């Protein structure tokens, strides 16, 4: 089974300025409307957004601002009402449901607020799961799952089930599951939403490390200013539109008190 979209090693051409990283995600006028008539809700209203390889973007905004819809859209879980979304140069809007599944399988990793691990299933098997869909043979699968769990600092916990792990550990398993396929893009939806501040910082350090050392592109939705400071770029949504899109000042210490006033 070959992926329906361009091979990942083939870098998509950069848009705009020549020095910018090649665009992994390119939204052009993306609009998402829920409901019809009077009950119509514009969750996204003509959004233009480009995310290049290697970026770490925090998507922020109040409830109902469209940040989660945007992330679902980037994750190919949802389709837009109008506009164009090119993932690594491939127009996602024209892909079938199954093709989008293949795109997720081969290029994306997900980390959710509620961890979303399979209950009564060991950490190792949870991490192996995306590899099963990639048809990776059993031994190779286990080797890579062990590696991924080690990378998130969970050696020795491979055979624990989610119920036997703390929230922070569960989220680490989820991160391991997301990175075991070496995705082009990791999508995190409020990854620290259920965690205390100490554990939250650990998870954010882990994500930062993955971004810096492994070059994994990360798009993260959060409403916590402190967590956003770990990202190198912040995009703010309000009423379905992007109101702020800026690079984090290089001198800011990640996680260092206070939020960015914008």
């Amino acid at each position, binding site marked *: 089974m070959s992926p329906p979209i361009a091979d990942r090693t083939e870098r998509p051409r950069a848009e705009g300025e020549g020095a910018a990283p090649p665009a992994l995600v390119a939204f052009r006028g993306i609009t998402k409307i829920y409901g019809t008539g009077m009950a119509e809700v514009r969750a996204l209203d003509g959004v233009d957004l480009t995310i290049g390889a290697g970026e770490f973007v925090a998507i922020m905004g109040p409830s109902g601002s469209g940040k989660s819809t945007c992330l679902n859209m980037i994750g190919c*879980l949802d389709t837009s009402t109008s506009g164009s979304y090119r993932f690594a140069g491939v127009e996602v809007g024209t892909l079938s449901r199954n093709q989008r*599944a293949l795109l*997720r399988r081969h290029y994306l990793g997900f980390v959710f607020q509620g961890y979303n691990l399979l209950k009564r299933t060991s950490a190792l098997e949870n991490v192996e799961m995306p590899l099963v*869909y990639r048809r990776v043979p059993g031994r190779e699968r286990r080797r890579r799952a062990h590696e991924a769990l080690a990378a998130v600092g969970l050696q020795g916990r491979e055979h624990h089930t989610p119920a036997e792990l703390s929230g922070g550990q569960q989220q680490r398993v989820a991160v391991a599951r997301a990175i075991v396929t070496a995705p082009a893009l990791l999508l995190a939806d409020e990854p620290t939403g259920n965690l205390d501040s100490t554990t939250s910082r650990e998870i954010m350090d882990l994500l930062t490390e993955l971004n810096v050392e492994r070059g994994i592109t990360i798009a993260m939705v959060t409403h916590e200013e402190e967590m956003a400071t770990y990202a190198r770029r912040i995009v703010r949504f309000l009423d379905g539109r992007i109101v702020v899109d800026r690079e984090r000042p290089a001198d800011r210490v990640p996680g260092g008190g206070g939020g960015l006033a914008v």
Partner: protein
Amino acid sequence: MIWSTIRLALRELGRNAMRSSLTILGIVIGVGAVISMVTLGGGATSQITGEISSLGSNLIIVRPGTQPQHGGIQVQAAPFDRADVEAIVREVPNTEAVAPMTSAPTVAVFGNANWSTTVNGTLSAYLAARDWPLARGRAFTEGEEQAGAMVCLLGATVQDELFGRQDPLGASIRLGSAACRVVGVLEARGESTFGMDQDDFILAPLRAVQRRLVGDDDVDLMFVSAQSEAATAQVQGDLERLLRQRRRIGAGQEDDFTVQDMAEIATIVESTTGVLTTFLGAIAAISLLVGGIGIMNIMLVSVTERTREIGIRLALGAQGHEVLLQFLLESTLLSLVGGLVGIALGLGLAAVAAPWLGVPFVLDPTIIVIAFLFSGAVGILFGYVPARRAARLDPIDALRYE
């Protein structure tokens, strides 16, 4: 992929062991009932056909009247007489033995012992036609047959009941008002499949029974044995032609008598068991339907319970048909396990019941394979709707499901 999906399905079923086993109960019972019934029925059929063929494949039975095979009216007709028997002996070639028979219920008395049984009036040819050897003594002589002498041969049961361990040969027993001398004892044949004692009768010369016990010259039945199996058809044809002529049946009229060889009788028995098999099939279909609905129900519950899991799988890149396959495999495994347990249960029941019912235990691999395949088909059929529901879930909604 398929192997890990099977393992996943097995584990999922194992987690809900109680629920899974209750779910398959319908299929277990249905398949078990059918397997045990078919196995016992098959044993009985093979025993009956075995018995019939042991009567001798050359044997032809001629009776007055017709016996319709599939319902309808039984036609009564005039009995045969001794002249018919003599005509057959004279005119039908390739016969080995021709034995007329007329029966009368009677009470046989010897000393203080008495026993209700049947007296069959016949000729010594009966022993040849039925291939029934004597245990002791001798058959009727031609003179005794001609004269209608009151001599008799005892079936093994009658001998036991009247004489116990005493020697019956030469003894005089009373049949109704007539005294009769015992000249021989037949070998025991035991019970037939239908539980009838085959040894409970007395043989006496035809003429003696007609004159002393029945009071008419009728012959109820004729046993004709052909010289070889190959000659059976010819003998049967000649018998029909001769009897039509003797009974003055015009061209175009139906026979008012029946000529049957053993193959025909075996066919009748088999068609009877065929009806039984159809009934069992209907029962099986109903129980599989009920079992299938049970599986569908549980799979729908399971899909709802595992909505979040399905959402996770879809988000991580599972395609619809992969989720469908996962749930379809679960329901199919469930019903296949039900089928296997049912087969084992049915065979076990049949093995226990067979000796108790006096029927041989005959294993029919065809019905086992059919039961297995059908239970699998039930799982696929009734698992499809829930599996499709799982496959069509929207990943975002499924992930939000609490």
